[in-house]
């Protein structure tokens, strides 16, 4: 995405950028600063997402928060909902846990459990220790939703690190008996935002399009007829039917407790990847 912006000036009018990449793009002067006063639908945006620090560079806003989601836990119906990620290492889930095969997410869980900042844990050994303690429980490392659905419906595990959006789909499309649980440590969050490239030739039309994308009416139609991630627009979420799964899982209070994935410097990303690789080798040994 960044490469496309760099090499094709003037081609794109609106770009979708993950909040963890927004500052990088803005720092390279690829984006136009935005004024939310020009976006009539922005009034409904959840403040924690709308004003998120990752969307700002030098005090200016470069992205309109659009959709978001969480990585937290999923548990089979009929079992006690875990209060903490510590359940992943609890003896009652022996050989009954699936983890997400993703370095950033799993280091995040380890950081939560050792009381550290998920985006910049200083004590990686403590993270490793928390993750390695899950070994007797770990049955499976999943990397795709399809793999998760198959293994869960075959009863291979009851507790798992899972995506909120996938939890909606697993229940809605496959009637899998699960609950999505956000433990007390909060979820690992992601946020996608819409930005206008600095080189766009149609800045006004771009702004109108973004305003349409965060319009509750459009969102409700998208979410109910096709299925969509959670909207950053609280009003849009409130207009979903009361029993809508998407609305039920993406409760507004979770936005307050979740930690968004931050932009990671290269050396930290490498350290995360190496640590997760080491933990996986420990699970396998």
């Amino acid at each position, binding site marked *: 995405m*960044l*490469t496309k912006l760099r090499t094709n000036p003037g081609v794109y009018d609106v770009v979708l950028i993950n909040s963890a990449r927004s500052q990088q793009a803005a720092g390279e002067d690829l984006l136009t600063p935005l004024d939310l006063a020009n976006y009539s639908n922005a009034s409904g945006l959840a403040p924690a997402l709308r004003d998120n620090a990752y969307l700002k560079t030098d005090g200016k806003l470069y992205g309109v928060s659009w959709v978001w989601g969480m990585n937290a836990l999923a548990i089979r119906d009929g079992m006690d909902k875990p209060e903490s990620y510590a359940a992943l290492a609890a003896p009652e889930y022996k050989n009954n846990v699936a983890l997400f095969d993703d*370095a950033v997410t799993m280091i995040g869980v380890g950081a939560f459990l050792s009381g550290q900042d998920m985006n910049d844990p200083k004590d990686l050994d403590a993270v490793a220790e928390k993750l390695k303690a899950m070994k007797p429980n770990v049955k499976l490392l999943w990397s795709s939703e399809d793999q998760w659905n198959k293994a869960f419906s075959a009863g*291979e595990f009851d507790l798992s690190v899972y995506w909120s959006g996938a939890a909606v789909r697993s229940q809605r499309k496959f009637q899998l008996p699960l609950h999505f649980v956000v433990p007390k440590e909060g979820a690992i969050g992601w946020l996608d935002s819409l930005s206008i490239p600095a080189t766009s030739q149609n800045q006004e039309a771009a702004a109108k399009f973004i305003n349409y994308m965060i319009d509750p009416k459009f969102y409700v139609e998208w979410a109910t007829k096709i299925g969509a991630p959670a909207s950053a627009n609280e009003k849009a979420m409130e207009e979903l039917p009361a029993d809508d799964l998407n609305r039920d899982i993406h409760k507004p209070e979770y936005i307050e407790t979740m930690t968004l994935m931050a932009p990671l410097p290269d050396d930290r*990303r490498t350290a995360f990847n190496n640590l997760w690789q080491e933990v996986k*080798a420990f*699970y*396998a040994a």
Partner: protein
Amino acid sequence: MPPEASAAGLPATRRRMPSWLATAALLLPSYAWLTLAVLLPLAAMFAFSFLHATPLGNKPVVWTLEQYRAFYDQPYLLGVAWASLSIGLWTTGICAVVGFAAALALVRATAGRARETLLILVLLPFWTNGLVRVFSWTMVIREGGFLDVFVRWFWPSAPSLGFLYTTPAIVLGLVHGYLPYMVLTCYIALLSVDEAVIEAAQSLGARWWTVLFKILVPLAAPGLVTGAILIFVPVIGAFMEPRILGGRVGVTMGTVIEDQFTQAFNWPLGSALAFTMLAVVLAVFATFSGVLRRSATT
């Protein structure tokens, strides 16, 4: 007729291409293709392995040897490498025994149409996508899968035989995938064994095991070695089977290297690990080929 005789019989007026030119002309297309499709990408990867970070975007390019220290900096990789090698040895060993037996049966006990049909049945799995084959195994060997259902027909209270997410499951998937190579190489080697030699052995009182181990196996050794190389090399780099069938235990050099390319976006480390494995494999074969040549000459 030996080739020299036919060459001598040609009319003297016809000019012949120098033999080196003919050889070069025949080799050129395949070597040009190999250069383009194998050597150049390999060279690019080799160059990557000396970089500090993946050369994309506007990051400065930094040359370093640090990637080759991975086994020293991350000693758990030695355990992973050993797991990969042992999976490779098990897979190759099982393929050798099963594949040799199948090839022997094809050569000695079948003929004509039946043999053709059976050969095609050996090749049949090759025509289906490898991913499909591996996913089918997950349905068979998971707890409560087809295997359990089948056993419980006869013994309703049978304990689960499901062994998905274990090392044997990985080996099973790999053997299924690579067995045809061994069957074919052994088949070709056994076809060339002269029937008279076996008859001679039997007439001198050799029992079946003597015939097998003193005659058939040594004479088919080139086929066994070729098959072993064809199987061992891709198996120690395999990542799909360990990932899908191995679950928690499915961490091999293949998956570690794949992770460096797909997840970690650390191409230099992935390349360095791949070339380290390549060096190990070449070293193994260099040792091995010396032993083989010696045993062939004595």
